[in-house]
Each structure stands twice: as structure tokens, then as C-alpha cells.
């Protein structure tokens, strides 16, 4: 079937022209350019301009090289699911997909039923190789996802509310009944984090080695796990919440509150950077697109909203509840509600999300947590009866970078990476809404004082001089006739700088006016038309 189809298509297919190849490269290299180049038109310094031109050229070349590498060298292709004819992708069942894919992939569809210890929450390492699961009733486990083997499981006999991996699979944190704990991969308790209190949600900021948590009292706490310092501890003042998510683009922590607001926090300020009203009702879930520009929120007002974080505007509102939201690496949005999962996709790239896939669990299962496995087309589901895994084609980034996150990492590479990442640990000050601001010039516009302000200043200066007491002098030098001119002189000198400034500004204004007139003095009768453009 496939082959005949190809033969039919062959006569119509032309080899790409030179122009096509160039256009494609240009399109591909756009994302590697990281925005527009600097505008060097107005630059007067010739030497600087030539240096900058050379640098811009270098950026262009490196982007082109990266684009070419992306086209030719990448080992894997992205997954996809395409409907044919009248089919709809959201009607396709997991069983149908299982029949079509290879054995290795179909092993990623499974359900683990552990009804006594649920509901379960889960977390993946950045490479997607390992998964930590935590059951509400105290069941903690680490699973190697490559060969689906259980590395370690332990029973802490205490409520577990959340689990989070630290910088690699050797350590993970669990939010338990009273305190949070850090465990090693072998299940040894390494630290008890008493500062956090009874934590509801845990998140790890891997560039900064910070463990962020929100607890029962609506407190947001940041702890540096490499040094143990508590970097920031802030009362949100907006009540208890378990909706917390880190924006991967800038490491800003967002909290969703019961009043419908979403607040964004950095560890160095006690007030939120952003406070936005998103829903008329409690916010139930929150997720960020990996590129950091899109936020998805779900509220109890039966709405799921998608926000453009560059404008702080909702660009799409969808109906429906969601207990949990999650973006995949390629931008698919998974919403979980009850026992039903819906995956949304932005087909055209025009910020219009529509249904891509759906999946229903067994009735009665309550989905608590959704997590896409990085670098795989797999969605992990933590629910009340255990955990499950389904295939979502096109969800994951097909090509990993060995130096960023390597699923096939050897212990030696892991050790090296740990040292590297500790050396590259970012200071907490680098958490800001726009991280590309680092290394740029901050423009501080000097504000011109208004006329009233200048007058007031002058008055104050005069008053200050008037209030000054003159020294009592002998030999008739403190007579009224002597003091009076002295005082007037002092007042005049106090006034002088302000008056001079005023005169200068007037001069400037008048010269500007002349310039706009083009230097030609018009007859008085014509002057009222002077600002209008001459018709031609």
C-alpha cells in the first residue's frame, strides 16, 4: 500500500530548488537567532559598529550551523498521530495506537493498581529516565523507566502529599505529614526539612538548586539544597493553596489561590512580582509552556484559560474543569478531571488550542497528577488507584542533548554533570520575569521637573535661607541697615540656579520652535498654519 502510494506521488515531486533550501534554512535558524539582531543604523562609532557587525555575522553563522545540524544530524524524528478520512484524532483509542506501534513503545502503556495506598503523585527526572511516585498513605518508590524496574520502595507510614526529584535521581524530597524529608535513592533519610512546615506542594528549581514549597499556612519557602540556607520565606497572605508551578523559562514560582488570583514570586522579594485575577472562583491547576510565554490555568468556575505571559492576556478560554494541567515539551496541554484526560494541541501555531487526544480511565478513578515524561511520547498519570501511563504521540522532544539531560547517562557522566551543575549554580538574584535582561543596559529616563515642582523647590530654598539666623556681630555690623541687604543677597543667590535653569529651558524651547518652522519666519497671518504639512 505504502509503496504504490509513493510511486504515484513520484512524478509530481520535484527536487527542491536552491531557493527552497535557503528558505527552509532561514525558517529553521529563526529560533536559534534568539530574537532580532541589534539595529546598528544609528551608531556613529565606526570601530564599535564594525565590531558589532562582525559579532552579528557570527551569530547568524552559528544559527545557520545549528539549523543545518537540526536538519541533517538529529538521530530521531518527532512522533505524530494523523487521522485519515473521516477519522478524528481525539476518537483514537489507546488500544488502536498500541496495535500500530512497536513493542518497545507499547510497553509504555500500563496501569499499576495499588488501591490501598493511593492517591498517587509522581515526578520525573529532567532526562525522563527515572520516576518517583508517592502514595498518600506513605508509599514512596523510585522506578527506572528504561527497563521498568523498581529501584527502591519504602513505606514511611505517614501522609505523603508530594514528591520531587532534586538535581539528579540520587536524591528526592517528599512532603510528609509534619515535615518534608530528603531521601537518597537507596531510601535512606538524609535530611528532615523542619523549616518548611507541613508542605502541600514541592518544586525543585534545578538551575538554582532551590527547593520551593508551599505549606498549610499559605507560606512560600525557598531552601538552597546545596548549602541548606533558607533563601526566602514569605507569607502569601492569600490563604492555603496546593497549586504551585515553576515557570521553566525564568524559574519564577507561581501560586494559584482560592480567590481566583495567580501570583508569581521570586525568592528575593516579599511581595509577588505579578498578581493577576484569572478566575471567578478558586484556581485548581496551573501549568507553563516550556518556552515560558504561555500559562494555562483551570478554575472551579468551569473554565480553562490560556494566557499569553508577554501581554498578561487570556488568548483562549475553554469550558471544563481540570484538577491538573501539564504542558509537554512540544507544547501539548494535558488536562485531567475525574477519570477523564484530554490533550489539547495548538495545530497551526496561531495560539488556538483544540482537542488532540482523549483518554478515559476506569470509572471511579480520580486523577490527581499528570506528568509528561521528558524526551518520550508518554504521559504519566497518578490517580487514586495507583499510577498509569499512556502514549501521546508528538508530546516529547525527540532529540536529547547529552550535556543537558541524557536518558542514557552513565554513573560517571552523572558525577561529572553534578560537579558542572554545582559550578554553574545561579545566584537567586537571577530569578526575574525577563531573564534575557541580564547583561543589558538598564535605561533610567531622567524625569524633567515640572514647572510647579521647580517653583516649589525655589520657594523651599528661599525659605531655608530666610530662616537662617545671622551671626551677632559687633561694631555696628549687625544693624538692621546692614542685615537687610545681606539677607536679600542670600535670597538672590538661592534663587539664581532655578532662574538660570528656567531661562535656559525657555531658550531651548524657542530654538526648537524655530527649527520646526524651518528657520523661515512666516508673516503673522500665516503663522497659525505653520504646523500643518504643506500640501503637494
Amino acid at each position, binding site marked *: 500500500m505504502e509503496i504504490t502510494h509513493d510511486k504515484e506521488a513520484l512524478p509530481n515531486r520535484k527536487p527542491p530548488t536552491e531557493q527552497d533550501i535557503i528558505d527552509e534554512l532561514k525558517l529553521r535558524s529563526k529560533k536559534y537567532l534568539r530574537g532580532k539582531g541589534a539595529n546598528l543604523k544609528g551608531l556613529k562609532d565606526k570601530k564599535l559598529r564594525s565590531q558589532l557587525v562582525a559579532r552579528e555575522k557570527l551569530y547568524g553563522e552559528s544559527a545557520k550551523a545549528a539549523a543545518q545540524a537540526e536538519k541533517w544530524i538529529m538521530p530521531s524524528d518527532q512522533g505524530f498521530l*494523523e487521522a485519515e478520512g473521516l477519522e478524528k484524532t481525539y476518537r483514537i483509542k489507546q488500544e488502536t495506537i498500541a496495535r500500530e506501534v512497536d513493542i518497545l513503545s507499547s510497553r509504555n502503556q500500563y496501569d499499576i493498581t495499588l488501591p490501598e495506598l493511593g492517591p498517587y503523585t509522581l515526578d520525573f527526572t529532567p532526562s525522563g529516565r527515572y520516576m518517583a511516585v508517592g502514595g498518600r498513605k506513605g508509599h514512596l518508590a523510585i522506578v527506572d523507566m528504561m527497563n521498568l524496574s523498581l529501584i527502591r520502595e519504602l513505606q514511611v507510614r505517614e501522609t505523603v502529599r508530594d514528591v520531587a526529584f532534586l538535581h539528579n535521581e540520587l536524591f528526592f524530597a517528599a512532603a510528609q505529614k509534619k515535615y518534608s524529608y530528603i531521601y537518597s535513592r537507596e531510601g535512606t533519610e538524609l535530611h528532615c526539612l523542619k523549616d518548611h512546615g507541613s508542605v502541600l506542594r514541592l518544586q525543585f528549581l534545578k538551575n538554582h538548586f532551590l527547593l520551593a514549597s508551599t505549606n498549610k499556612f499559605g507560606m512560600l519557602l525557598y531552601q538552597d539544597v546545596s548549602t541548606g540556607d533558607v533563601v526566602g520565606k514569605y507569607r502569601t497572605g492569600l490563604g492555603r493553596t496546593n497549586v504551585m508551578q515553576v515557570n521553566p523559562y525564568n524559574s519564577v514560582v507561581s501560586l494559584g489561590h482560592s480567590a481566583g488570583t495567580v501570583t508569581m514570586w521570586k525568592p528575593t522579594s516579599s511581595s509577588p512580582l505579578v498578581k493577576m485575577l484569572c478566575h471567578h472562583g478558586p484556581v485548581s491547576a496551573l501549568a507553563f509552556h516550556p518556552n515560558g510565554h504561555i500559562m494555562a490555568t483551570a478554575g472551579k468556575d468551569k473554565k480553562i484559560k490560556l494566557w499569553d505571559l508577554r501581554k498578561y492576556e487570556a488568548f483562549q478560554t475553554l469550558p471544563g474543569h481540570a484538577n491538573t494541567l501539564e504542558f509537554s515539551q512540544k507544547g501539548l496541554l494535558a488536562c485531567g478531571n475525574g477519570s477523564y484526560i484530554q490533550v489539547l494541541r495548538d495545530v497551526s501555531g496561531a495560539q488556538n488550542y483544540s482537542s488532540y487526544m482523549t483518554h478515559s480511565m476506569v470509572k471511579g478513578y480520580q486523577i490527581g497528577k499528570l506528568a509528561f515524561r521528558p524526551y518520550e511520547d508518554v504521559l504519566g498519570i497518578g490517580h487514586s488507584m495507583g499510577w498509569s501511563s499512556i502514549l501521546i504521540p508528538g508530546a516529547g522532544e*525527540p532529540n536529547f542533548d547529552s550535556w543537558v539531560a541524557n536518558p542514557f547517562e552513565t554513573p560517571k557522566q552523572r558525577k561529572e554533570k553534578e560537579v558542572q551543575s554545582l559550578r*554553574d549554580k545561579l545566584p537567586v538574584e537571577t530569578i526575574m520575569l525577563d531573564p534575557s535582561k541580564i547583561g543589558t543596559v538598564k535605561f533610567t529616563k531622567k524625569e524633567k521637573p515640572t514647572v510647579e515642582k521647580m517653583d516649589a523647590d525655589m520657594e523651599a530654598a528661599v525659605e531655608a535661607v530666610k530662616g537662617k539666623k545671622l551671626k551677632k556681630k559687633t561694631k555696628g555690623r549687625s544693624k538692621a541697615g546692614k542685615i537687610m541687604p545681606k539677607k536679600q543677597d542670600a535670597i538672590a543667590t538661592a534663587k539664581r540656579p532655578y532662574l538660570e535653569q528656567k531661562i535656559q529651558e525657555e531658550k531651548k524651547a524657542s530654538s526648537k520652535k524655530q527649527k520646526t518652522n524651518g528657520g523661515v519666519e512666516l508673516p503673522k497671518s500665516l503663522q497659525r498654519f505653520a504646523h500643518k504639512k504643506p500640501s503637494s
Partner: protein
Amino acid sequence: MKVKVISRSTDDFTRERSQDLQRVFRNYDPILRPQEKALEYQRALNAAKLDKIFARPFIGAMEGHVDAVSCMAKNPSQLKEIFSGSMDGDIRLWDIAARHTVCRFPGHQGAVRGLTVSTDGCILVSCGIDSTVRLWKTPVASFVESNAPIKTVEPASVYVWKNAFCSADHQWDGEHFATGGAQVDIWNHNRSQPVNSFVWGSDTVLSVRFSPAEPNLLASSASDRSINLYDLRKATPLRKLIMQTKTNSIAWNPMEPLNFTVANEDGCCYSYDLRNLDIAKYVHKDHVSAVMDIDYSPTGREFVTGSYDRTVRIFPNTAGHSREIYHTKRMQRVFCVKFSGDGSYVISGSDDTNLRLWKAKASEQLGVILPREKKKHEYHEAIKKRYGHLPEVNRISRHRHLPRPVYKAAALMRDMATAKKRKDDRRKAHSAPGSVTTKPLRLKRIVKEVE
């Protein structure tokens, strides 16, 4: 329905045998690297700090002289050889790599003041205050063990002349050499008397230096604060430039044939263009006392200076301030400095009878560098350059610990300069407009130019 999911078999992504290298896959997508700018800045900061940690410029001292080292000469044909002359008349040839004396050239009765080697490296010329010029055959370079006895060499010829000498320099690509004393004398290898003499004024000539690009062009400085230019083919000197203070030494830029830099008594170095001597191209400030000697790197991009303030500094040839300062507790007044022939080391000779060997780049890694190490160094250099303008990186990479006297003197000089400027500004503000003009520093120290 068409479906494809990501499926990786372990075999495709791991090595086959344990002897193989680990496979590396790259994906340059910016989304995989959030906060890359912050990360890069942090790395630049770390690179600047690492530079400080690894900054160990002092390699070793070469001891042997019993009096102050007054002059040095590089052997142009041998990378690891350097000659040094001392105030007691001793001349030594050093092996820089092993840091010991290879042989000695005894004979001078007083201080040796001028030392130079012919371009082919065969003949060493020395002159001193005993009014003699001595020519020596340099020993053939061979592998010498460190414990071999020090050889002595007899002079090939000795020429006695009328006056004491202060400096000597050999012509590039020719058989003439020049000495400076009461006048500038031009000598030939085979004649016992100078073939030519130049006199302009009656003061002592402090230094002579041939241009490396134009063999017949010669610059000299005299104690009457003048810098003279001569052409050997002409009977009279070409030009004379008089500055406010005297010039101790001159160095030609080996890569830019028209430019030369002079080491001045006022602690500054001045770069001049031969064609336009009425204004300096650059003023290199930083030393707090007289600059005694100057030598260009073979790349022509930087030069080293030794000063009476007991420090050695390295300046970029187009910058107003030095990029590096070298000092040790035991180093006294520096009388002579030289860049090594490959531009990676600096040798200084000082009043404390020692020659000292320094790295030209303080934090450079010596020895064989692996390709990966090299790449890392290049990356560090690049990010330091990219973020060098940011205050923290700039502060760390610019900071140098200074000896207390130098620090104090620099602060004092700065105070004096600001006070002077303040006074000048006030004078200007209270004079008739245009009646008081401020001269730029490039112009200020020049008295006049005589043709």
C-alpha cells in the same frame, strides 16, 4: 490512521564496547536551555575568578650576578638564550629553560651598559663605561646539563674608544651596530673605529635602537630630554623631538614599522608615529616612577616595561593603562626587561642582581594542553570578553594587589592630577572665553620638534 511515537533502542544510543568513547548527541534548541544568559554570565564570573586563582606569573629567578643587572640582549636565533650584563662588568649567557648560566664573558673593567647580538646570532657586542667595545663569538648552542661547569669566553676583539658608552644596538639585517655615549657611533664588525658618528647637541646619548623594518633607521634618546632619528645613509640626523622629561629607552613596534614607544622618566610611555612627531599616538600611564626599559612583544600587540618603582608592567600597544603588573617582595629597581622570542615569557633584570622569569599571561597553563582543555580555555576567553563590560566581571578581572608604596604613590598622583585639573577648570571658567586652553596629555609633554 498514521501514528509514530518516539522509540529509542538502547543500542543506538550507547557505546558497543567499553573501550569505545561515549556517544554524544547535541540538540541546540534554546528551549532546552532556560536562563542561558544568566548561566553564561555566571560562567563568565567564574572564569574571571578562576583566572585570579591560577594567576601565578612568577616562574623563577636566575641568580649568579654579584651586582645589579644593567642590560640584557636576546639572541634572535636562539629562543632559550639570553645575555645579561651587570654593573661589575660581568656578562653571562643564560639558558632560560634550565634557568642557569651557560657561560661567562669576562673582561669589562666597569659596568656593562650596552649589550646586543647580531641578527644571525653569531656575534655578541658589549660596551661599557670602561670606554671599550668588545665583540664576542657566541658559543654554539648545545644541550648542556644543569651541573656542567660554566665556560668562559675570550673576546674576539676589543676596541678602545674615547668616551664611556651607555647603550648599544645591532642593525637588523646588516653588519653595523650603533653605540651611544657622548655621541651616536656607527661601527662595523671589522673596523676598530666607528665608521660614522652623529652629534646633535652635547649631551649623553642614553639609548639607541635600530628599526626592525628599515635597517638604516635609528632612534636614540639623550639626557637633554630629546629623541633623535637618524638615517645611516645621510650625513646628518633627521629629526629631533624634545619632551619635558628625558627618555630612558626606546622600542620599535616590530609589526607596525612606523610606530615606536618611548619609556619616559615621568612614569609614562609615549607611542609615536614616525611621520607625525608633534603629537603622541597614545600615552600609557600607570607606573608611579621612572620607566627604565621597554620591549615589544614579537606580535607587536603589547609591550613590557620595567620601572624604578620596582614593578614590571605589560601594556597593550593601543591602551592607556596596563593590563598586568608584576612585583615581588625581593625585586628591587628594574633596569631592563625583555619579551622572550615567542612572546610567552617576560624576563626582567633588577638592582637585586637577579634575572626574573615571568609568564606573559599570568594565568596561562604551561605545558602540553589537551584539545579539550584548549577548547575550554577558548570558551572562557570568549565569555569573559562577552561579559567583560559588566561591573562585577570587570572588577574581578581588573583588580590587582599592589605593593603598599606603589598603591600609595598612585593614589597620591591621582590626587595631584585631580587637584591640577580642578584648578585649571576654575582658571578656565574665570578667564575670558578662549584665552585659556587645555592641552591634551598627548600634546602636553612635548616641548618642540626640531627638523
